[in-house]
């Protein structure tokens, strides 16, 4: 069974498509996580492959199904954005030999294939549909929801995993080459840090609306606080450090006005969710969380870096697509879990949603109000990447757990958890899911 990437037809990229045809007919039930680590210690049992298997098995167990009930697999094959196996470093043969191999020796170590997973999870005996999603869990969720809705599979595991190697992030791969190919030759030519484009947009945002970087402080403190109540997350597991205003405001610039704590920490981790039909979900172990819509942003910027105007227009368009397909309005949102890694994405996303009635240029003022999980306007109850490390999936796990009533210490209490939205990463180029406690 050859696995390819999901076709464009699986995404809901256009405005005007109407209510999603499978609204409320697809549900998330099981959630499975691996532990987290800062970097791989090069043991087989902590490899990205091993932790992916662990996350998948945990999701199966959490949903209360048997492995042979699973008939679909949606995974993201890329497991890093900046940690590449050095060309001159010997392959970890003992790790490779610990698993059933594919033709690629780094499969399960610095990348993942469906073939590798199926070779190493013999209990998955009935997979008859598999597909790859690029980049993020956010994308894979869109694909999985559509696949279940379209009847391509009825019980689907969705997986995203991350590896991180010793040494510095973003120093290997194409950044270490003598030459660089494609459009990266233009965007990466001067070695700017990854957050610089967002920082430029945020600088313009502050100028346009008369805001400043310190106004991000309550968001940062809130995100870390929520993250420390996320037992699956990196900071909660390894360094339970709160952030203070002093900690944040004095930190060094990475790309001014984005400082160290506006960036997320690269880690190792894996997460999986079990999606199924609403009908099948009724008989499973956990409360179903129904999917009301999924939406895709596929905008291409006019220049090397999107302008503030492009970002604002695209986020507004994304918000309209989210609501249109779900058949809801902004007033129906109990909470939002939009992307935050870099923190300065978040105000663009929630202004695009018009969350709690905020308009352009108002998010940072909104941050000065009660945005806690105890208040009426919870912002990023997951804590996101800032609260738990770079995974781009905490927001989804939290959304599911909030609506299942099992978010633990993070459970929102100022408002009933009924409908939430999560997704990202980029304002131009993201995927979003609308979750609901009920199917209609």
């Amino acid at each position, binding site marked *: 069974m050859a696995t390819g990437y999901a076709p464009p037809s699986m995404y809901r990229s256009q405005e005007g498509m109407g209510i999603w045809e499978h609204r409320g007919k697809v549900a998330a039930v099981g959630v499975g996580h691996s532990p987290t680590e*800062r970097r791989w210690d090069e043991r087989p049992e902590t490899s990205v492959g091993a932790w992916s298997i662990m996350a998948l098995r945990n999701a199966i167990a959490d949903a209360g199904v048997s492995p042979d009930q699973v008939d679909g697999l949606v995974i993201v094959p890329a497991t890093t954005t900046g940690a590449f196996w050095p060309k001159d470093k010997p392959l970890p043969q003992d790790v490779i030999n610990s698993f059933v191999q594919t033709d690629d020796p780094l499969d399960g170590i610095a990348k993942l294939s469906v073939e590798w997973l199926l070779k190493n999870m013999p209990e998955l005996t009935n997979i008859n549909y598999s597909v790859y999603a690029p980049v993020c869990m956010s994308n894979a969720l869109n694909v999985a929801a559509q696949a279940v809705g379209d009847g391509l599979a009825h019980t689907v595991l969705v997986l995203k995993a991350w590896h991180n190697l010793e040494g510095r992030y973003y120093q290997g791969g194409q950044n270490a080459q003598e030459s660089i190919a494609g459009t990266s030759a233009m965007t990466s030519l001067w070695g700017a840090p990854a957050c610089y484009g967002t920082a430029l947009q945020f600088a313009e945002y502050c100028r346009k609306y008369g805001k400043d970087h310190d106004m991000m402080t309550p968001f940062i403190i809130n995100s870390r606080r929520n993250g420390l109540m996320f037992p699956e997350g990196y900071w909660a597991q390894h360094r339970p450090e709160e*952030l203070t205003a002093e900690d944040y405001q*004095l*930190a*060094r610039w990475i790309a001014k006005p984005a400082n160290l704590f506006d960036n997320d920490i690269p880690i190792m981790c894996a997460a999986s969710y079990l999606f199924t039909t609403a009908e099948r979900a009724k008989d499973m172990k956990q409360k179903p969380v129904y999917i009301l819509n999924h939406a895709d942003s596929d905008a291409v910027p006019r220049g090397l870096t999107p302008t503030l105007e492009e970002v604002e227009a695209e986020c507004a368009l994304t918000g309209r697509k989210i609501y249109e397909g779900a058949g809801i309005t902004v007033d129906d949102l109990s909470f939002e879990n939009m992307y935050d890694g870099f923190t300065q994405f978040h105000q663009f996303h929630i202004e695009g949603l018009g969350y709690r009635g905020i308009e352009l240029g108002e998010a940072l003022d909104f941050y000065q109000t009660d945005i806690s999980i105890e208040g009426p306007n919870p912002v990023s109850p997951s804590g996101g990447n800032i609260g738990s490390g770079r995974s781009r999936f905490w927001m989804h796990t939290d959304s599911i757990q909030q609506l299942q009533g099992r978010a633990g210490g993070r459970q929102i209490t100022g408002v009933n958890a009924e409908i939430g939205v999560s997704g990202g990463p980029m304002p131009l180029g993201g995927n979003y899911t609308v979750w609901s406690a009920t199917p209609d």
Partner: protein
Amino acid sequence: MAILISFDIDGTMEIGDPPGPVTLKMVKAARAKGIITGSCSDRPMSAQRAIWEEYGIEYDFVCYKHLLSDLKNQFEVGEYFHVGDRDDLDRKYAIRAGFGFFWPAEAAENPLLL
């Protein structure tokens, strides 16, 4: 003449992530010599304080490594040193602030810490 030594944490001290060669015992030894000690790391300053307190080691300061020059204004001593593992951060900021600089392995063998 008084001496001040600031320690980076990750990649420098044994309690860092990754661990480095500078031990807490060495910091205690420096303090026993009357050397002013503390940390200058990228870790949150509140977390730096918590680390010293967790291990029961007195400290005179915590700061971010890019603020070494501010630290120099706070303490009037004869010699200032920073110990760290990053050329583009620790060494750069140390030189910029007029500090002497030790790589972690060098510091671990320096009589000031023994």
